[in-house]
């Protein structure tokens, strides 16, 4: 059953490769996405036991990321039917194949417990996304692609040497050389702290740059800004979570090695730094897709802070995986529609979106309210959990900085988003063929409803999964 997660998308990749028509391909994509979603839900309900060699084990953490990725991918796939219909000027074969390969690798990341394999899968997602960012085939997009590729590759390379350090630590410790999470956790006590520390640093920087923690985030605004809406959604809502999952694995290891304090502090510092950076760059942002990219930087920061705080905040971190992923989907897809309709990403040209695109504009506005942590939307739950546990645990400084940067970000984002959606459409604004249709509006709307639902009611099974996940990340005395 687990294998299906990996294989199904690969089959899909082959099929879409064979399909000649640019109109049919997205439909096939959606079909396979639906299949994947089905398998995912099936797996969440009836989880198979870990594989005997311990390489594959779909634990609670994996489930959360898998769920968010699969759901987001499903909606993106549906969206692609409507969206790519407007982009028939160029073939979408590479796009569809890339997405499916990425999905397969992503599933691999979520189900494996072998750090090496996890790393390989992660690298695969990075590379499979490269051509997608270059979808628009222009100078700006090639630049974005280049930066994305080089920075992420360097980052992942660093992660690799981090893993090597870890492995060498096992050899030095004289225990069975292995990168299986469970073995490592078992032998964690024996590993020499020198290598382990070095490993953690390299892994943190490596996965951090993939995740986009400041100051390793520099590729994000370019890549998100230049890639199509749905690719941006997958990057911000999917890949970010995969990188975060990898960090969670490292975190589990740290817990076992009792070296957690340094790692936690590092996470808090980097997280807050990311939030502040995002705050600075979001104010007066003239390009709304770049703004969304910085918002993504902010939210990985939130997750990092939450993880670093530990305790109750970890629940917030895990829930934020879902909340952030889905909300980012809402924002990127609706902003993609707005971009299509105005044929511009500049907030100087985009005005009165509520008038021109009542649905997309409204969804974008709602997404903005959601992502800035206002109830009744899901991000509120996670962000409030983080804030409250910060204050309850007496980390007043962290809590205060957290709130302040949230405040600045809200102001900056409001000053960008509200003028976009409100008011009159400027006369000189370009008139394009784009109209809101069920296919382009339905997916973001569906995601929005999910975000709202999770904001007022978390289903009991999901709650248990989240709690189990949090339990995996607690200090075991």
């Amino acid at each position: 059953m687990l294998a299906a997660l990996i294989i199904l998308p690969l089959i899909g990749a082959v099929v879409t490769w064979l399909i000649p028509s640019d109109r049919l391909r997205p439909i096939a994509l959606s079909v396979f996405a639906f299949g994947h979603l089905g398998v995912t839900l099936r797996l969440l309900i009836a989880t198979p036991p870990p594989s005997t060699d311990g390489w594959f084990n779909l634990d609670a953490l994996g489930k959360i990321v898998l769920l968010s990725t699969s759901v987001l991918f499903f909606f993106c796939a549906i969206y692609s039917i409507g969206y790519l219909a407007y982009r028939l000027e160029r073939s979408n074969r590479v796009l569809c194949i890339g997405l499916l390969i990425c999905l397969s690798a992503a599933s691999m990341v979520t189900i494996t417990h072998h750090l090496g394999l996890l790393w390989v899968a992660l690298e695969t997602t990075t590379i499979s996304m490269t051509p997608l960012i270059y979808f628009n085939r222009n100078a700006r997009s090639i630049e974005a692609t280049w930066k994305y590729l080089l920075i992420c590759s360097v980052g992942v390379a660093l992660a690799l040497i981090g893993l090597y350090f870890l492995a060498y630590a096992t050899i030095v410790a004289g225990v069975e050389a292995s990168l299986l999470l469970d073995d490592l956790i078992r032998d964690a006590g024996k590993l020499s702290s020198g290598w382990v520390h070095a490993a953690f640093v390299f892994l943190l920087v490596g996965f951090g740059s993939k995740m986009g923690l400041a100051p390793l985030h520099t590729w994000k605004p370019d890549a998100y800004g230049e890639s199509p809406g749905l690719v941006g959604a997958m990057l911000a809502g999917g890949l970010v979570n995969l990188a975060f999952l990898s960090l969670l694995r490292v975190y589990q290891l740290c817990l076992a090695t009792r070296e957690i304090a340094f790692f936690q502090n590092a996470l808090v510092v980097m997280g807050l730094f990311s939030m502040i950076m995002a705050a600075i760059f979001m104010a007066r942002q003239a390009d709304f897709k770049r703004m969304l990219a910085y918002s993504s930087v902010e939210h990985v920061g939130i997750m990092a802070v939450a993880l670093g705080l530990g305790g109750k905040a970890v629940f917030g971190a895990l829930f934020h995986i879902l909340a952030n992923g889905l909300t980012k989907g809402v924002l990127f897809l609706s902003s993609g529609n707005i971009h299509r309709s105005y044929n511009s990403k500049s907030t100087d040209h985009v005005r009165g979106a509520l008038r021109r695109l009542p649905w997309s504009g409204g969804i974008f506005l709602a997404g903005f309210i959601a992502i800035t942590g206002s109830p009744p939307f899901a991000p509120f739950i996670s962000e409030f959990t983080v804030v409250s546990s910060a204050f309850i645990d007496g980390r007043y400084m962290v809590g205060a900085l957290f709130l302040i940067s949230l405040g600045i970000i809200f102001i900056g984002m409001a000053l960008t988003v509200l003028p976009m959606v409100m008011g009159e459409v400027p006369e000189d604004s370009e008139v394009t063929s784009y109209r809101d249709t069920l296919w382009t509006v339905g997916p973001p709307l569906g995601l929005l409803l999910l975000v709202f639902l999770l904001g007022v009611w978390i289903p009991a099974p999901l709650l248990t999964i989240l709690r189990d996940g949090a339990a995996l990340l607690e200090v075991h005395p």
Partner: protein
Amino acid sequence: MIALADQLLVLVLLINFVVLGTSRLIFSIRAVAVQGVILGILPALIHPFSWHLVGIISMILATKGAVIPLLLYRAMRSAGIKREVEPFLGYVPTLLLGAVFTALSFGFAGKLPMLAEHQNYMFVPASIATLMTGFLILTTRRKAISQVLGYLVLENGIFIFGLLLAEAMPIMVEAGALLDLLVGTFVMGIVINHISREFSSLDTSRLTSLKEE
């Protein structure tokens, strides 16, 4: 045999300095190619013979020694550039920094516990030093090609470290090496060719239109 390995590692370090010091792209490409070849030989020295090993070695020699350098060479020709003019940091300072980092990496390696059989060999320092060299190139060079070269050197550093693990977990090392080198660098090659088509130049200082005013 393994004593010879150490000599080769010294060679690797020297090549690092060559790459840091030269301004002619073609020359540094060749240097990196040579480095790759050396790295290809190294496993043969430290591991017992096996067909598997032969496969690995030939693969590495092919990619590091031939394919990627050729790719870069073509890109360079198509873009019609010969040398890395005005780097962000002059060659002499770069060399000095390289020396400093090499020294540092020896120190760093000294602090870490080693297996007895690796104790008096310089795998770890060499790998760290190469890694740093790669970084140095990435941060000081302007041309996209030079940056790919930097990435390659960085990879070589990692690869050297991987040799220590080769018998403990071969799959891991190969996966790492192959995925990174083959796929990663290969894709980079493709992207570079795209860049040279877009800009008819590989000067990444042209690739700065995406920024905040």
